[in-house]
């Protein structure tokens, strides 16, 4: 297992008011993303526990792209990864932002 942590400052705060959302399951090639609206301002934090060791640079690229596209300010993401491919990670992150943003901007 490898633990990774990323801190970003997003352009703006994420939409919606839900405090928490969760998507995905921890299985081979899949991951779960728990997202919580707990950070001040436009801070964004991602904590990852992954079964696939040595892919820190790939995570860094995927998450940099995600923060740029979705501007998830104020959100903390906690990820348990079962060795998902980068496209699956991007999909789950997008789903998590969408789910926590449901119920009005």
């Amino acid at each position, binding site marked *: 297992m490898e633990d990774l942590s990323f801190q970003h400052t997003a352009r703006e705060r994420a939409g919606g008011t839900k405090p928490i959302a*969760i998507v995905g399951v*921890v299985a081979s090639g899949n991951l779960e993303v728990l997202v919580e609206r707990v950070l001040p301002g436009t801070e964004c934090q991602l904590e990852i526990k992954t079964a696939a060791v040595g892919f820190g640079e790939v995570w860094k690229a995927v998450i940099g792209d995600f923060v740029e596209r979705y501007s998830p300010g104020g959100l903390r993401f*906690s990820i*348990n990864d079962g060795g998902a491919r980068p496209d699956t990670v991007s999909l789950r992150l997008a789903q998590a932002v969408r789910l926590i943003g449901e119920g009005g901007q």
Partner: protein
Amino acid sequence: MTAPLKHTVPSERARTTSFNEASARTRVELLLDAGSFVEFIGPEKREVSPHLKIFDLPEQFDDGLVVGGGRLDGSPVFIAAQEGRFMGGAFGEVHGAKLTGLLRAAREIESVPVLILLDTGGVRLQEANAGELAIAEIMRAVMEARMAGVKVIGLIGGRSGCYGGGGLISGCCSALAVSEPGRIAVSGPEVIETNRGVEEFDSRDRALVWRTMGGKNRRLQGAADVFTDDTVQGFRDAALELLSLVGAFGLDRLKAEQARLADRLQNFGTCADAIDLWAAQGIAQAEQVPDLSADQFISLANTIGRTSREAR
């Protein structure tokens, strides 16, 4: 999670969503009345397994079990759903303790039934002793809840089936609903083959596995009380039907269950294959049962009759 789903009414989603393919969370959301589910010890509590990190294995924030309360057709229910894709839905220490706690809460309250959406390969081998103890605690908690008047309904239609200790727990429930892809057994196909040889059970013969352990045979044998099509709505309807049918639990019922099982052994104990058992029940063209659609099968099963209401 995608735009079209968001704008579809929940009951329509329940009718069109495969129970087998849905996640534990989706099953719970669509099975209960819309918006009624409140989770206990949710993923934000991060009550993860204390054992998996020792094996360098990934954890899941809910340890593969969603538990909570909600409403079913307006009435309160407790519900537990195993995530069959996380470690095969297997029982570990935390996973098991969450279910035990839910059943004990139901025992104290007495009037609120429990739905258990079993989807499991059995005990999580990495947590061997803790997992085995969890099974024993859950079986006791099911029986204690039932003795306090609680109806405990098992719903089985997940990808991992209901095996090992999950099979034992299912045998303790007040009633079971099953779909065709749902399988119920204690020893799984590969375990039987490993221990008794391929002549006893060929685990690669999928047709054999399903006609022996699958939902159709379990319904015809009387192990499951209701057979449903593989939709979340089907399981919701089945749960409501079973809740209306299950009667009081006590010594008389246990004796009736013992008698039912003894009769079954007497009548069908020499059958070498499920097809022989179906033929012995008087089903014409028994070999065609696996090919019947859900509707056709339900019609057939209703002619055979149900498990006696006095038993279980």
